[in-house]
């Protein structure tokens, strides 16, 4: 299982911030061509990002690019420049399945031309329309995870984000939509970069809501989030016992896994694997 506990957003027009991205140990680095890049810099930024993907050391971080939305004139050009060099496309403001399909078709052309493997897409749900279609969007074969954006979504509903009472419902929808298709669910960012206690609580809450990670906007947030996503010793111990029982059953050719006299179903084994992956042990 690919860990995506942290995805660090870095503005795609700022070489000084980009050059050290590999040092921060984020599971994912997202070079952003969308909101953090002003319109007059879109051209320069996509070329800068193309070079960064090829020349900057990303360490263990997965290389993503957030392209501009399909409601802009930029998204195709973004893909043409960066797709051959990134691993995943982060697609903002997705509202329907066909939005993903449209982008996937253009990606396919570029992938054929460059003779490269198929890249994944992580749609960002940022509108009410996107939210009610999230279950449909998540089923697209290119989609590897589902993310959402709090600021735009609460604005679309017409409520202030900080006082919004509907966000846990939104989060649950995102998690259900993603998990129904066996995709990862990714929570939005915690924007107070000085409040580490608040960040820890936020990230741990995201984990127990079913998310696989959250967005981060500052390198200092990475370690705290990884700690929050680390299972407890008790969870790790139980997961180890379950995996051991599953191995034993397999070795003895038993179809049924049991532990301490209780039957263990497949989803429980899968959850144990996930816990050990989060614990970064096997």
């Amino acid at each position, binding site marked *: 299982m690919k860990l995506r506990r942290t995805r660090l957003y870095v503005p795609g*027009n*700022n*070489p*000084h911030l980009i*050059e050290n991205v590999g040092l921060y140990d984020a599971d994912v680095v997202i070079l952003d061509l969308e909101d953090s890049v002003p319109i007059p810099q*879109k*051209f*320069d930024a996509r*070329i*800068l990002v*193309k*070079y*960064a993907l*090829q*020349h*900057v050391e990303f360490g263990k971080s997965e290389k993503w690019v957030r392209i501009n939305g399909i409601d802009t*004139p*930029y998204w195709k*050009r973004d893909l043409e420049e960066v797709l051959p060099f990134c691993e995943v496309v982060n697609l903002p403001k997705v509202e329907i399945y066909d939005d993903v399909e449209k982008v996937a078709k253009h990606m396919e052309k570029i992938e054929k031309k460059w003779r490269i493997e198929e890249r994944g897409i992580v749609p960002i749900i940022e509108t009410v329309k996107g939210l009610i279609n999230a279950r449909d969007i998540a089923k697209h074969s290119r989609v590897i995870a589902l993310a959402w954006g709090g600021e735009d979504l609460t604005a679309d509903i017409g409520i202030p984000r900080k006082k919004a009472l509907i966000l846990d419902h939104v989060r649950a929808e995102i998690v259900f939509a993603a998990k129904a298709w066996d995709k990862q669910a990714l929570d939005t960012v915690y924007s107070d970069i000085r409040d580490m206690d608040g960040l820890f609580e936020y990230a741990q809450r995201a984990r127990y809501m079913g998310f696989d990670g959250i967005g981060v906007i500052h390198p200092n947030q990475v370690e705290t989030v990884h700690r929050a996503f680390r299972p407890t010793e008790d969870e790790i111990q139980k997961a180890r016992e379950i995996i051991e029982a599953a191995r034993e059953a397999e070795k003895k050719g038993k179809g049924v896994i049991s532990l301490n006299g209780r039957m263990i179903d497949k989803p429980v084994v899968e959850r144990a694997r996930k816990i050990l992956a989060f614990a970064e042990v096997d």
Partner: protein
Amino acid sequence: MRVQAGTEEKGDVLVVIEPAKKKEIVIKSKVQVMYGEAIKNTVKEMTKNLKKVKVEISDKGALEWVLRARMEAAMRKYRGEKE
């Protein structure tokens, strides 16, 4: 037509290209003593097919890949690419 790419922020470089009577490369860099020659070589190599242009480089400590990215952006704009 005068075009530019990049910024004068830390770690970046501003590249300006404009028509001129003959080819001219001007480099302003705070690390000129150490890297001026390397910057000039990269610019020369990338602009070998461009004649009658003035290329002005204002370097703020950009790495080689940043200089190349900003040069490519400026040259493509000079050739008329938009957006």
